[in-house]
């Protein structure tokens, strides 16, 4: 009886080499590792994790794992010297932004930490490396903009203004965080000190899933925000001024023709290699939405490629053969599969079966890594067309 009433939720530390309801996955800019975010969706452990996987060998690098908060959102990686050095991850459970250090050990394995890392224990974020962002923003009247439930994050192009060294933005990166609940877009910058500096905020609609930055110039950026609760790609214009002041304004969103009323609309987004096309996962109906990018940074709807099930996120792969070909890989959460779309032909050219509940996907080298949310696994797919195992699941890591 006593045992039946016991509640051991969040009492155990997560395991360093085990995925537990993984969602987001991101490739290191070096292309040699991917980072898998486990969300601890059932609150079994004290937190989630970020676990590196070696791309070449498709092996879990548990020695590099770090514990993060529960219900993490997307992960963004800051690059320096051709490899990732900082990870930024919003935590929905406590509305924090956690700043992860990414170092390499002697074997070039990424070692993640979030404060002091003890050799014999799974590191977790120290308070100093967690920034509470739930009530950081104020509107013009000084009222708090509710920024709880942060989910989407992206890092923008570094400011190389060529201006004098007293330019407060010189060398910094902009990065953006948006909330799933109420939809504010928070604008930060981050520099060598790895301390995020909040700049400004702008209110968008609740339901933001993914963000993409379109740099119009060094100081003027467009942010595209996919929205899962409204039929909109939302648009915000950010102006980083010489003076250091940052202005942000919401513009008219981009919508698609309403074909279904599922209440579930956009999910993951990515740009084509040439930046001329925006790909967005859509659920009303299940489809890959293609947009032509206008010179003003606004997407213009071009068409839908029909899919099935519950598509989640996507990744773009262009083979290193000098051709202009590329394919879009879209996860289908329902169908336990990954669709492969030729965006020029607007055609599904393959469908690859993976583990249960695929959601996140990242491509590094010639392999796609897919987080299988329900199975607690990562499926590895060969995407090199010249490979004998092209478009096969070559491993399922657990």
């Amino acid at each position, binding site marked *: 009886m006593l045992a039946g009433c016991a509640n051991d939720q969040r009492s155990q530390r997560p395991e360093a080499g085990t995925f537990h309801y993984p969602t987001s996955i991101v490739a290191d800019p070096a292309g040699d590792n991917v980072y898998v975010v486990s969300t601890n969706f059932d609150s079994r452990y004290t937190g989630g994790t970020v676990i590196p996987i070696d791309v070449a060998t498709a092996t879990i690098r548990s020695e590099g794992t770090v514990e993060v908060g529960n219900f993490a959102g997307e992960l963004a990686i800051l690059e320096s010297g051709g490899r990732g050095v900082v990870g930024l991850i919003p935590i929905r459970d406590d509305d924090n932004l956690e700043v992860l250090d990414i170092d390499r050990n002697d074997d070039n394995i990424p070692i993640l930490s979030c404060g002091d890392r003890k050799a014999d224990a799974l590191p977790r974020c120290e308070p100093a490396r967690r920034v509470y962002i739930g009530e950081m923003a104020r509107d013009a009247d000084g009222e708090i903009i509710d920024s709880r439930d942060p989910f989407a994050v992206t890092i923008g192009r570094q400011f190389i203004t060529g201006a004098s060294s007293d330019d407060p933005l010189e060398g910094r990166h902009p990065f953006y965080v948006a909330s799933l609940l109420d939809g504010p877009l928070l604008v930060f910058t981050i520099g060598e000190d790895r301390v995020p500096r909040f700049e400004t905020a702008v209110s968008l609609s609740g339901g933001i899933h993914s963000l993409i930055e379109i740099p119009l110039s060094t100081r003027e950026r467009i942010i595209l925000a996919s929205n899962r609760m409204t039929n909109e790609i939302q648009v915000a214009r950010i102006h980083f001024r010489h003076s250091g002041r940052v202005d942000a304004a919401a513009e008219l969103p981009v919508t698609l023709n309403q*074909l279904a009323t599922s209440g579930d609309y956009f999910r993951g987004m990515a740009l084509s290699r040439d930046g001329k096309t925006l790909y967005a996962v859509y659920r009303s109906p299940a489809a890959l939405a293609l947009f032509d990018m206008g010179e003003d940074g606004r997407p213009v709807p071009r068409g839908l490629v*029909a899919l099935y099930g519950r598509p989640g996120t996507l990744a773009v792969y262009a083979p290193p053969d000098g051709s202009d070909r590329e394919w879009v890989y879209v996860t289908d959460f329902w169908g336990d599969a990954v669709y492969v779309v030729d965006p020029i032909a607007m055609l599904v050219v393959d469908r690859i079966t993976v583990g249960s509940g695929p959601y996140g996907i990242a491509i590094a080298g010639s392999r796609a890594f897919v987080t299988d949310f329900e199975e607690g696994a990562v499926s590895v797919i060969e995407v090199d067309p010249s490979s004998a195992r092209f478009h096969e699941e070559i491993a399922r890591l657990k």
Partner: protein
Amino acid sequence: VKQIRTFTILLALAAVTATACSSTEDYPNRIIRRPLGLAVVCQEAGAVPVPLERCGEAGVIASAWILDGDAGLLVMSLADGSHFDADPFVPGFSAFDLGGTPIAIRGADDSRNVYVLMLEDDIVGAPSLIQVESEDLALDLGFQRQPLPCRPETFEFAALPTAGGDPVPIIMVAMSCPAGSRVVAIPRDRVGTLSVDDIGLFPSWSVPGTVRHIGVSDEGTVVYLGHHAPASGGDLLTRLDLGMLPSEPSASITVTLEEPGSDGSGDSNPRVRGAPAVTPDGKFLYVPRVLPDGVAVFDAATLDRVDVHAPVPDTPDPGNPLMQRLGILDIPMAAPPLFIIMLGNGEVDRALVALESGELVGVFTTAGEEDPRAHRIELLGTDSRSVASAPVTRVGGKVVDRAYLLRADLPSFGATEISPDPEQEGSFVYYGIRMRGESRTEPTEAWTLSWEGRIPGASGTEGRLLPTDDGFTRVLEDLTRDFCGTGVQAGSEGLPSDIVVLRPDAPIDCGELVGAAFEYQVLEVRPTSLRLAPLYASMPLPGPECIGDDPIPFEVRVRESWAVTGARTGFLHNLESDGDTCRIRDDADPLFHARALTALPGSPGQGLSSCPVRFGDPEIGDAGWAAALFSNIAFSLTVHPGCRSDADFLPVVAPTVRDTELVFQVTSGSNPRQIAVGGLPAQGFVLAGDRIVGVDAANGLVMEIDPEAMTLVQSRY
């Protein structure tokens, strides 16, 4: 063997219930997952295939063969909606597993065969064209798999003329090969019997780029290819005359779909979304394209582009001046068109255009007795009028609820209701907005009036201030802008000159100039520069000592007026760039106009007669009201000022805050005759008898449509 195979589709479908526990009732749940298209097969007793045109006859049973990209080939009786279960031992309905990646399906007009194009065929280990005999349904279908040498793109039935004999039925298969794009004519009766090398023996045509779509003339001997070649002008259209040898110069004609005036550099993204379709009279070719969404029309013989909005010769029809002004040649559609079904009944030739948004829209392909214009959208009626919605007022970016009714201190169009129009019998004035009454030039879209609003496309961040000889004015140059083309002006016909607001990155504290934003009037407009002069003596133009050499962000706004912008129509004006200057366009028309004034009393500070301001207020005067009447090609209105009481409780004008917006929606009276067929219709609706059969990807429904009545007869999972 053949006799054994004469289990018929009729028997098979009849046996469905017994063998596969199926029901003839409509299924409550979706069965088709990711439809790519369908073929229709019609058979009479004894499983004898009959031509599709006989599908509606008594004793003929039709079935739909649906290509499901995820599942395979599904077969459904159109008589009762039952599905054939390819594997009764697996719960649910099983499709025929095709073993690979299918991309397209076509059914022969004689119902004998269905063909599926496979991007990859696991059975043969190569791309293939699968031929299925419709009589073989009850067996484990003996698919005949024809290996293909290259990646297939699409295919279509055609006919190859022969010397003195009947044309040979062929299948034109477009492929992307290492050496380039090829279209190969494979005799239908040889499909499944050839080696890959054999295919090289048949006639083939090489074309640039990648062939995405194939259309065929009615008799099958002229083929139209839609191909995409970024290096050769983007989207191309080629006409192949199969009666001539490929080597003959006149055997093919190729044109580009680039818009007139484009730089010809092509586009990396294809804009043609579906197969070209020949009109029933054989004279024109319809091509569904996007951005802008519409149907491009070509002369089927010469491939000359047809401007469907041009004046009709020898008739009083002036064409559509708005479409001509916007440079649109095509039949406009409200969503991306995917494919076209041609319908000719001997009296009226029509086309049905399938839109991604799930509608089939009717189009007349020929002129009618009452309308001399061909290529026009069928309308529900000819007496429909366009309507406008109540204006929404936004101040400071926030919506003010029902301001036209509740807030006299804010500008409006002077009316709070819809009222009969005394000037046009049967028409109405919508909250002060009077439509012009020509619905063709009143497109459905949102219009925004913005007080001292930005001129779309004219503002920038890379402005540079250059000195002038007079030392008083300065030139703002931005090589990325086209100030003439966006409609910036230095003032004319009672309208004040536009203004430029400079917003340096950092606030300025430089002599007389202190602040973060500085306004100047436009004295002269050139394509990439504006000559500016001070608006006030206290605000001279900044010199380099104040702003340095950094580029300056700037806004270009209309002054003391409203910028009237249509969401699609944009900011209408009559200017264009001509070398180093601006000029008035040859087709200038006062109705292409986008600056509205507010009706104001004759002198500043003069009071009003009443508050809210009533139309005809004598303090504004006849001249004031007349000057404030705004008319463009779609509507007319008069902006009434907001008002308040002054210290003596007398009504006076309340000033309008910059960027105050009045937004309303126009719904065009041109209501297309259309029918909703679910969302995202899959390629290839089929005309079978007097019905059109198709499937949609949003819901997985197989639909039967009566194209004459434009009604949905049946839809089933």
